């Protein structure tokens, strides 16, 4: 078997980054890390999109390369609002520990 770049490798890389992103987002308590973890996971998904797009013939492959653009835009919006919230909450509570954020609990 020739040592060429396989579509599978891209997906596996995406998977690994995604897993790390999830772990960062969930297991770290600092909200900044939570945000960063989410960004990582989103990036992994983008990568996966592009990787899959390249397995499709001609015209069909465009969609998979357009969608990441939107994802990036949404991620930007998310970061924007998320950081604003962090500022707000921090001013209220003087803390960045997500364990202290439980306003939504009934």
């Amino acid at each position, binding site marked *: 078997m020739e040592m060429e770049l396989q579509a599978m490798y891209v997906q596996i890389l995406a998977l690994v980054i995604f897993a790390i992103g999830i772990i960062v987002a969930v*297991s770290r308590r600092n909200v900044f890390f939570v945000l960063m973890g989410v*960004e990582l996971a989103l990036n992994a998904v983008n990568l996966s999109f592009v990787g899959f797009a390249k397995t499709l013939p001609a015209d069909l492959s465009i969609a998979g390369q357009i969608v990441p653009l939107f994802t990036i835009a949404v991620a930007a*919006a998310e970061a924007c609002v998320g950081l604003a919230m962090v500022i707000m909450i921090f001013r209220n509570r003087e803390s960045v520990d997500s364990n202290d954020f439980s306003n939504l609990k009934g």
Partner: protein
Amino acid sequence: MLALIYFIILGVIAVGSALCVLLSKHPLYGALSLVVSMLSLAGIYGLLGSPFIGVVQIMVYAGAIIMLLTFVIMVLNAGRDSKTPRFDKVSLFVIPAAIVLAGLVGFVMVRSGIAFDATTLRGSVKLTSETLFNTAQEGPGYFVLFEVIGLLLLSSMGAAVLMAKKRLGTDNEEEK
């Protein structure tokens, strides 16, 4: 062959810096590692034949989002997370679960046997923008979506400004 080598190098950097994010103590370090990870991912995009996404990735992620993050961390000056441990009991769930999940999905994917297609189009700026702004095609296409995203960005910006501003205002009053 060459592509594979580049890919392995970039992939290792990406994964490594991602792990740095996971393990770093101070969020500032985390943010910097994240930038590295993003950059290497941008390289992979280029490698895969989607240079436009790679460029956008650098500009938006590395340029804007992470900058924003960094600024906020610095402004708040509350980034130090020394009191809280990096991993706690929850991590006992999360890490194995995520690894198992990744393993399972990977297992399935490996067996599915996907391969690159030779006829696939290169995601150049020209092609991308033509597809994005093509209003002639049937149905609404991406154009409307693009506009909607614009709106989303605008509104999220507005929301962010409102939230931050209101809090600042009350702070001032309290000071008085």
